[in-house]
C-alpha cells in the first residue's frame, strides 16, 4: 500500500511464515522500541514464562533463574530502544538472558542471590545522611554518586559512565529489594499501575506508595536518571542540565496550510533544508482531496480523523525519511478526538517518558512534530513543532498557529497532554533501507528517474482522490458511536446538517472551521494538479480538474466568509443555513466535475504510458 489510506482497517502485509504470536510480538516490540512502556509490559506478560524456561535450562537452578529473568527484563527494558529489527525481539531477548546467565554462573559468590542494603554503603563518605532502609533515599544517593563520578572523570565520556553506573545501580538495587518492593517498582514502571492499584495489590496504604513514587520521580528527574527508565539512550547527549533552541526557517503565509499536520511537516522538512511546496505535500498526502464530516452535526472533528501513526510514517517514508513516533493517551483526563486516539496505549503523565525524546532530537538538530491540545483559540488542538527546550526553565519552545513568535510550554504541560503524539525524523532512508543522519537533506536530482517518480506520485495521488471521493466511509473508528462520512458524500452529510432545522441545528463553531479548512484544501488541490508532470490530453484534463477544484474552493471560501472561523455559540437562522447549503451544493457540483476530469486524466495518462 502506498502513502494513501482509504480504509481505516488497512490490511497488514501477510507473511505466510509469521505466526499470529510472532506478529503480535513484533508489533509490541516495535511499539516498545518507540518508547511505549505499556507495550513493553505486554511483552513481559507474553514472554515471561518462556524467559523463565530459558533461564532454568541454562542454569538448572529455578531460584537463580528468577534472578536472571529479573536481570534480563530490566536490561531489555533499558535497552529496547537499541533493538533495530523488532521482528527479532525474541532472539534479542534470548541473547540477553544468555549473557545474564553466563555472568551469573561465572560470578557466583556470597551475593549471588540477594545483596543486603548495607553492602551498598559506599566506601567513601560524602557526609550526606542516607536512610539505608529507604529505597528512595538510596536511589537518590546512588544516582547522585554516579553523576559525581561521571563529572569527575574527564577522560571517560560522562554520559557513558553515568549510564553504566546508573544501570549497575538500578540493576543491583533491584536485587536488594524484597519481593514486595521489587513488585512495586515493576508495577509502576513496567505495568504502569496507579499507586491505588499498587497499594491494593500489596496491601499497603496508597499514601505510602504514592509518596514513594512521587519522591522518587522528583529526585530521578533532578538527577537526569529519566533517560534510563524506559527511554532510548540519547546519543551524544550530555547528562548536564542544558538548553537548546533551533532556528526555524521563514514560513510565509502563502506556504501555510490549514491542515496543520501537513503545514508543520513542511516546516519540519524545511528546517532540515529539504524544502517542499506545500501543494506537493498536500497532494502527496491526499489531504488536498479529503473531506470528512461527522455524522452527528457540523462538529469539526472529522478533519482530524485518520490513522495518525500510519499517515505520518507513510508520508515521511515516501519522502525518504525514517521516523520515530511516541504516542499514547492519558486515562485520567478526557481525550479529544477519541476516534483517532482510541487505540493509543494508556500512558502515565510523567515527564520522564516524553522530555528525553524531545531533547534527543533537538540535540540532533531536528525539530519534533507535536500534537498540541493547548493551542490558542479559536483552535482547540493542532499540530505544532517543538524547536527548543530548556532544562533550567523546565520548558519547551514550540510553534502555535495563532502565535507567529511561538510559545513556551512547561515540561509538566507536555507530560500531562491527554493525547501524546510526537514524531521525529531519524534520518534519510538509503536505497538499502538503512537510515542516515537527518540533515542535511540530499538534494533531489532532476532527471529521468526523478520525473518518472513524480509522475508515479501524481498518478497515485489522483487515484487516491478518485477512490476517496467515492468511499463513503474511508475512516471508521472502532468506537461505535462515532461515525464520519467521507468523499463526495461528505458534502451531502454537511448539507443535511445545515438543513436539520431548529431541533438539529448545525454547530456554528465547527461549521466555521470546516469551511475554512476545506476551502484551503481545495485551493491546494487546484495548485497541485497544475504541477503534475503529464502531457497532452492527460495534462489538459488535469488542468480542467484543477479549475474545477479552484471553483469548489471559491464556493467554500465564500462559505467561510459567511461563517468565519471564530469561537461562536450563536444559532444560525434558517436563511443563513440555507444560504450555506446552497454554497455547498455549488462546491459539490464543481468537485464532482473535478473527479470526472481526474478519472479521464488517469485514463489518458495510462494510454500515454502504453504508447
Amino acid at each position, binding site marked *: 500500500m502506498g502513502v494513501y489510506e482509504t480504509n481505516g*482497517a488497512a490490511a497488514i502485509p501477510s507473511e505466510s511464515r509469521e505466526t*499470529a504470536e510472532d506478529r*503480535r510480538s513484533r508489533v509490541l516490540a516495535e511499539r516498545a522500541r518507540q518508547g511505549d512502556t*505499556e507495550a513493553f*509490559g*505486554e511483552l513481559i*506478560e*507474553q514472554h515471561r514464562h518462556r524467559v523463565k524456561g530459558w533461564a532454568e535450562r541454562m542454569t538448572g537452578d529455578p531460584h537463580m533463574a528468577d534472578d536472571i529473568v529479573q536481570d534480563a527484563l530490566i536490561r531489555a527494558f533499558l535497552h529496547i530502544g537499541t533493538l533495530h529489527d523488532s521482528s527479532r525481539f525474541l532472539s534479542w531477548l534470548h541473547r540477553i538472558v544468555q549473557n545474564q546467565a553466563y555472568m551469573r554462573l561465572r560470578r557466583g559468590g556470597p551475593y549471588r542471590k540477594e545483596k543486603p542494603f548495607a553492602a551498598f554503603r559506599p566506601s567513601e563518605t560524602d557526609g550526606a545522611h542516607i536512610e539505608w532502609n529507604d529505597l528512595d533515599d538510596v536511589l537518590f544517593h546512588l544516582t547522585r554518586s554516579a553523576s559525581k563520578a561521571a563529572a569527575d572523570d574527564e577522560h571517560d565520556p560522562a554520559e557513558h559512565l553515568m549510564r553504566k553506573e546508573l544501570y549497575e545501580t538500578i540493576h543491583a538495587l533491584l536485587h536488594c529489594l524484597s519481593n514486595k518492593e521489587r513488585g512495586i517498582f515493576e508495577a509502576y514502571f513496567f*505495568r*504502569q499501575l*496507579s499507586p*491505588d*492499584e499498587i497499594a*491494593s*495489590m500489596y496491601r499497603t496504604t496508597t499514601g505510602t506508595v504514592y509518596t514513594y513514587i512521587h519522591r522518587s520521580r522528583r529526585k530521578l528527574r533532578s538527577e537526569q536518571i529519566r533517560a534510563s527508565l524506559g527511554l532510548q539512550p540519547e546519543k551524544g547527549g550530555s547528562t548536564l542540565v542544558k538548553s537548546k533552541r533551533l532556528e526555524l526557517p521563514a514560513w510565509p503565509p502563502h506556504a501555510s496550510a490549514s491542515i496543520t499536520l501537513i503545514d508543520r511537516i513542511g516546516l519540519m522538512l524545511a528546517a532540515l533544508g529539504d524544502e517542499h511546496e506545500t501543494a506537493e505535500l498536500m497532494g502527496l498526502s491526499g489531504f488536498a482531496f479529503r473531506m470528512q464530516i461527522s455524522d*452527528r*452535526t457540523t*462538529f*469539526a*472533528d472529522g478533519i482530524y480523523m485518520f490513522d495518525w501513526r500510519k499517515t505520518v510514517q507513510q508520508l515521511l517514508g515516501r519522502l525518504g525519511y525514517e521516523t520515530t513516533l511516541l504516542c499514547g*493517551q*492519558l*486515562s*485520567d*483526563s*478526557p*481525550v*479529544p*478526538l*477519541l476516534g483517532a486516539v*482510541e*487505540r493509543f*496505549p*494508556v500512558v502515565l503523565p510523567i515527564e520522564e517518558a516524553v522530555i528525553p525524546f524531545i531533547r534527543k532530537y533537538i540535540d540532533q538538530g531536528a525539530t519534533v512534530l507535536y500534537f498540541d*491540545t493547548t493551542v490558542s483559540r479559536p483552535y*482547540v488542538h493542532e499540530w505544532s513543532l517543538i524547536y527548543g527546550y530548556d532544562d533550567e526553565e523546565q520548558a519547551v519552545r514550540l510553534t502555535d498557529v495563532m502565535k507567529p513568535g511561538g510559545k513556551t510550554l512547561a515540561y509538566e504541560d507536555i507530560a500531562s497532554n*491527554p493525547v501524546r503524539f510526537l514524531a521525529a525524523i531519524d534520518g534519510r532512508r538509503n536505497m538499502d533501507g538503512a537510515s542516515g543522519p537527518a540533515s542535511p537533506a540530499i538534494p533531489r536530482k532532476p532527471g529521468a528517474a526523478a520525473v518518472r517518480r513524480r509522475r508515479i506520485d501524481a498518478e497515485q495521488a489522483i487515484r487516491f482522490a478518485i477512490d476517496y471521493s467515492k468511499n463513503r466511509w474511508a475512516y471508521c473508528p*472502532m*468506537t*461505535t*458511536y462515532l461515525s464520519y462520512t467521507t468523499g463526495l458524500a461528505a458534502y451531502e452529510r454537511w448539507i443535511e446538517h445545515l438543513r436539520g432545522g*431548529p*431541533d*438539529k*441545528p448545525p*454547530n456554528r*463553531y*465547527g461549521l466555521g472551521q470546516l469551511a475554512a479548512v476545506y476551502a484551503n484544501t481545495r485551493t491546494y488541490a487546484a495548485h497541485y494538479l497544475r504541477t503534475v508532470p503529464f502531457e497532452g490530453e492527460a495534462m489538459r484534463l488535469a488542468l480542467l480538474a484543477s479549475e474545477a477544484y479552484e471553483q469548489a474552493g471559491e464556493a467554500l471560501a465564500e462559505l467561510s466568509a459567511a461563517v468565519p472561523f471564530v469561537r461562536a*455559540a450563536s*444559532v444560525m437562522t434558517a436563511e443563513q443555513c440555507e444560504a450555506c447549503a446552497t454554497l455547498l451544493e455549488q462546491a459539490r457540483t464543481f468537485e464532482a466535475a473535478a473527479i470526472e476530469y481526474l478519472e479521464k486524466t488517469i485514463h489518458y495518462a495510462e494510454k500515454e504510458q502504453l504508447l
Partner: protein
Amino acid sequence: MSHITEIRYLTEFQNLNNINDAIASFEREHPDVRVIVEQATDHYEALQAFNSDEAPDIIESGGWSLFNRPGMFVNLLPYVNEVPGLREDLNPGIMRIACKDGTLPGLPVDVSVPLILYDKEKFDRAGLPYPTEGWTWDDMMALGEKLTIRNERGVASQFGLGIGVDIEFFEPFIMRNGGRLIAPDGTARGSVDQPAAIEAFRKVTEAYRVHQIIRKPEEPSEAGELHEGFAMIFSFTWFTGGCLDHGLGDRFGVVGLPNMPGGQLANMIYMGAAGITSKSRNPRLAWEFLNHYNLRRPDAFRSARTLPITRSLAEQSGMAEHPIWSRYIQELDHVQISGFYINEKWNASRQLINEEINRMILEGADVAQTLRSWTRFA
C-alpha cells in the same frame, strides 16, 4: 423591565429538540430567565469549557467520566431531597450507579440497557417458539444455529444473533455468570482473570467460532442491516426505539438476556448526565431548570429511545405499560456498575481490549490467557 438571568447549558448532544422544548416551557414559566444552549464536540471540549473563565452553569455529557471528576459538579442530592417524594420516585437501579460516596453529581440522561429483541417473523418462518424469560445461553446458541442461514459458499443471508464486538457489550454475560471485569475497588486482578469471567467469555467466543451464529468482524454477509437479517438482536433502547419509530414494533418481541451458568440476574447500563457545575453562579436556578427538563416532562418519553429516571415518568409517559418498554424498565432493577464507570484506564483501553477480542474471535487466541493479560489495563 425586570432583570434577565442567563443559564448557560453546555451539551455534547446534537439533537436539541428535547432541550429546546424544555427551554421553551421553562422560559414560559420563568420569563426572567434565558437558557442559552452551547455544544461541545466531546468530553475534552466540555472540560475545557468548565476550566475557562466562562464555565457553563450546566454540562450535559453523553458519558460518565466527567462526573467522576472531583469538584467539577455540585451534589444534587440536597436539591433532590427538597422535592417531596422525589428521592423515592427516582429509579433505585439507576441511582445505585449514579450515586457515589453519597453524592449525585448529575441527573442521569440518555439511559439505556440491552435486552434481546427477537424477530417474530423469522421465528415463525423457522417454526421455532419465541424465547422466554429464564432461557439459557445454550438455548440461545441452539436457536441461533437454527436461525442462521448460509448459502453454499457459507455466506449468511440471516444470522441468529446480532451483537457488536465490544467489551462493554459482553460484560453483562460475565456479570450474569457471577463474575466481573473490574472489582468495585477498580482492580482487574482477581476479577477479569477469574473462572466466572473466563467461562463467560469463552462462551461468547464460541458463539462466533463454534456456533457461528454471529457475524465475525469483516465477515462477508448478505444479511443486510441489523433490523433486516438478524433473528435475535442484542438491542439497546436506542435501536429498539428506532425500530418502534419506523413502525416495526409488531415484528419484534423482547426478552431478557439469557441465563448463564452462574445464575445471576444482572445487566449493564449506559447513561450520561446533566450536572450543575461547581462554577455556576446560579445553582438553584440551574437546578430548577434541570428538574423541569429531566423530571417533569413525561411527553419527552412518549416517543423515546432512552429510559426515564423516575417511576412516575415511566408511568405518565406510558412506557411502564408498553409491551416492549415495560420490559426495559423492569431490567433497571438488575443493573450493575460496569468496569468503565469504575476505572478510567480500563475505559480508555476499550479499543485495545476490543482488538484482543477480535484476535480471540478471528485467530482463536487463548481466552484464559488473554483475559489474564487484561489485568494490565486496569
